[in-house]
């Protein structure tokens, strides 16, 4: 069992600075997910923890040991790769046994461990097969098995589900979650899929351009994003943004844009007052919008013209134009709305987000 901590970790490939001053504490038995768009440095960070990439500067600790100079084989980690990296010339059983053989385990111990892992993953019948005879999901299980048999201190996952089809991915996601609960081993999981990140992670790290944008529990990222990038990256469909001016009117702060004038109250209003008469970005999630009714204050309503109606069955997504911005609203599936309709949308004032126009940090 082990904590993993990164202290001021940097990675440069020649002139390319791909990981910048990353500070992270991954707790014992925690499931930590690194998420971000491609090229954000998440995989490089994982590979540095694995020891497959050298660190340019900073420290990585696993447990109490600084592992900067420790070769991968001595870090007590196991890694599952995106392409599974099963040894093609070995049977499934030999694939599982390889790591144990390299560590000079007793033969009986190797057999019992293989059996245990195979039972956990339901691959007992596949042990004699070669990897090329397995389906994608089965290969995925074998790759997981190879990590489990070793009983390592830390599991590392590098986009392990991205080669599976959508249905299998959802299924394996659930199994991974169950597996983590059962084994309770510190896990670090890299993905570009924010749904995977939200569903799997105890905590999630959002990265962009080699910099950690925010680290927190999934709902914390969702409800209080630290900046505009996190707000737009987490959540599907993505948060709506509109460029607004914060103006003071009749003692109240109002976010104004063409076709939009939203009164800000409460804590957000107080914080916005400090930035009065400045540019900002207003953010609201599609599910926090609804068709205006009698109970909605006029200062939280605005006109929208519907451009596209997306019927998803459980909800309706309205792609609509508000002033110069495009807003997506998620509304009740029972509503009858057609393209080119004009209607009034209202927002939940307590669910509004404001971001500084220059720094993009949350206000």
């Amino acid at each position: 069992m082990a904590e993993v901590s990164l202290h001021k970790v940097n990675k440069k490939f020649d002139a390319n600075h791909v990981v910048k001053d990353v500070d992270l504490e991954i707790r014992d038995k925690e499931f930590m997910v690194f998420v971000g768009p491609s090229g954000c440095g998440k995989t490089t960070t994982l590979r540095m923890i694995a020891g497959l990439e050298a660190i340019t500067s900073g420290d990585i600790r696993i447990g109490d040991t600084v592992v900067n100079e420790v070769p991968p084989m001595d870090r007590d980690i196991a890694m599952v790769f995106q392409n599974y990296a099963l040894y093609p010339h070995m049977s499934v059983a030999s694939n599982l046994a390889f790591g144990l053989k390299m560590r000079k385990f007793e033969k009986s111990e190797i057999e019992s461990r293989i059996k245990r892992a195979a039972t956990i993953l339901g691959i007992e019948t596949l042990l004699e097969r070669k990897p090329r005879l397995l389906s994608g999901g089965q290969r995925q299980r074998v790759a997981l098995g190879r990590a489990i048999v070793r009983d390592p201190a830390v599991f590392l996952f590098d986009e392990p589900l991205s080669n599976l089809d959508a249905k299998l991915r959802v299924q394996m996601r659930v199994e991974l979650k169950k597996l983590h609960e059962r084994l309770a081993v510190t896990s670090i999981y890299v993905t570009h899929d924010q749904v995977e990140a939200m569903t799997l992670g105890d905590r999630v790290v959002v990265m962009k351009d080699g910099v950690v944008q925010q680290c927190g529990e999934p709902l914390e990222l969702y409800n209080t994003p630290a900046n505009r990038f996190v707000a737009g990256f987490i959540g599907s469909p993505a948060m709506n943004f509109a460029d607004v001016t914060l103006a003071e009117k009749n003692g109240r702060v109002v976010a104004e844009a063409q076709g939009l004038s939203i009164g800000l109250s409460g804590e957000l209003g107080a914080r916005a007052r400090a930035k009065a008469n400045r540019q900002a970005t207003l953010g609201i999630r599609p599910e926090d919008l609804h068709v205006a009714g009698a109970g909605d204050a006029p200062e939280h309503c605005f006109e929208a013209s519907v451009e596209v109606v997306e019927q998803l069955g459980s909800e309706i997504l309205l792609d609509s134009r508000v002033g110069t911005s495009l807003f997506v609203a998620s509304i009740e599936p029972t509503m009858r709305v057609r393209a080119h309709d004009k209607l009034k949308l209202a927002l939940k004032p307590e669910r509004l987000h404001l971001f500084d126009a220059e720094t993009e940090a949350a206000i």
Partner: protein
Amino acid sequence: MIEGAAWRKWVFYNIPLIIFVIVLLFPFYWMIITTFRPDGELYRPWNARNYMPFWTNHPTIEHIQYLFEETNFGRWMLNTMFIALVSTLISLFCGVLAGYALARLNFPFAGSLGTVIFITYLVPQTLLFIPLAQIIRNFELGDTPWSLILTYPTFLIPFCTWLMMGYFKAIPKELEECARIDGASRWKAMVYIIIPCAVPGILSAGIIAFTLSWNEFIYALVFLSSPDQKTVPVGVTSELIRGDVFFWGPLMAGALLGSIPVAIVYSFFVEHYVSGLTGSVKG
């Protein structure tokens, strides 16, 4: 495949293929038929009444007998086999290690070094044999199999290195990384994981290297002089062409028997050989 009417398939696929196969196989056919023809038929003028260029009604093995009884052919075969095998093994060993290093170890100038190695393969042997002859003489290796075993790698190693480098690059590097996380040192990861995956590539390199050294002519001609040291290509041409007299029957018999070992090697490994050249390792 060719789509459309049947005549299209014939014009663009079958007929060209048939022509190609005929052009390719005719020399072999000629070699075989000449081997089994009696001298009387071989030297018959083309306008004679019973001239029959493509067939014989009186097959004979007298040329093969001549080859084994009147020349050192058996000895040449053994020489060639020994030299080709040992120089292939040396070249494979060096080529696999060098190819791995160039493909996987990120040392400075790895890329340009790979190109330089390939360029050395392109230096023509007709230039290289002059300085090499000097070296062979200095080491007093002339007229021994070692003069060839040690000089063939000059073109075999660059070739094997180049081929293996490409093959190693095609093997996903995650395999090796996974092995290293699993507890293998770089050396063990290479021995247990990468080299077994590269067997098709190693076999192709070995087959081609074996063929190249089996058929090599100019070094063998220059470095070997006594009849019992010669290799098949040199022995056959030097002993069976005397002045301007060509002993066609034994010559063709020698060529036929000399090509059999190579044919056997190819037929054994043909599947590996093809997948080695098309380079496919599935994870």
